[in-house]
């Protein structure tokens, strides 16, 4: 645990793990050592549902730039959906 930078957020949705789809309960977001990405530190997101065991995890490990691009893109897509009146919360 070399940075110990981690935040958790409750999430609603589904994720596809090694055993198929499962209900997501939480996303754990850290900036620390990745397991696979060829970086010393990465922006790691673990989408998990601990009630279904530790294997109920969808993991991504992103470079800093990739993470920032992803955040911007998600927000841009949500803005487009909002302008088109497509958001679930608008119905």
């Amino acid at each position, binding site marked *: *645990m*070399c*940075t*110990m930078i*981690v935040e*958790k957020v409750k999430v609603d949705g589904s994720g596809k793990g090694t055993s198929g789809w499962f209900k997501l309960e939480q996303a*754990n977001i*850290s900036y*620390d*050592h990745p*397991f696979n990405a*060829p970086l*010393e*530190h990465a922006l*790691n997101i*673990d989408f*998990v549902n*601990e009630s279904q*065991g*530790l*294997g109920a*995890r969808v*993991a991504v490990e992103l470079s800093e730039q990739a993470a920032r691009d992803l955040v911007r893109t998600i927000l841009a897509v949500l803005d487009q959906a909002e302008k088109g009146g497509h958001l679930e919360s608008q119905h």
Partner: protein
Amino acid sequence: MYRTDMYEGWLAETVMMTGANGDVINAYLARPLGKGPFPAMVLAHHMPGWDQWYRETTLKFAHHGYITISPNLYFRSGHGAPEDVAAKVRADNGIPDDQAVGDLAGAMKYMCDLPYSNGKVGIFGTCSGGRHSYLAACRVPGFDAIVDCWGGRVVMTPDQLTKNFPVSPLDYTKDLSCPILGLFGNDDSSPTPEQVNQHEAELRKYDKTYEFHRYDGAGHGFFYYHVPAYRQAQAVDGWQKVFAFLEKYLQG
């Protein structure tokens, strides 16, 4: 020195041992075959968990003549693929220092109780395992040598202290009871070269026996042959220093 006409053999298996608070946890034990007596090593695994690298490194130490145990410091966090367990620990802000130290103390006792032990025990760790090793070597009497490989957060600022990490390991330096070998990469960000300097200054302040080696062209985890951080020349030299150091303090 190995000769090609020598017999060699090892045994490696999962065992159960008593750790912090009397909890029974699992561990990977590897030992040379024969009556011994052999020196012993305790390995404190790194943040990515009780993973393949640590199991293979347990075998490596046994290959070099050490009874070696690697306790599963994440045992209480559940079971599954090592990465999934380590991801949970990462999300939970790590494991408590007291728990890790208790598990490593239990591992040392387990080794001392083995009939083929020569009574000397060292401890080795990388990354968070280097930090845990340092804590154990300072807080638990009985270790005869410690190898700290790029242990991050040995030097902590007050704002980094938490319930799990209530004391900066550096503050225990006066209690370090054995010689220490430290290996560090000058491109590392945890620990930084400046933090390594602070650590060295503290060891000098308390007149501890230490050997620090700092490698140019290497960052964090330069022994890890499965990731791009691996640095061949530095790793080969580092391993030579590890085994020379252990031979000096644990053999005979």
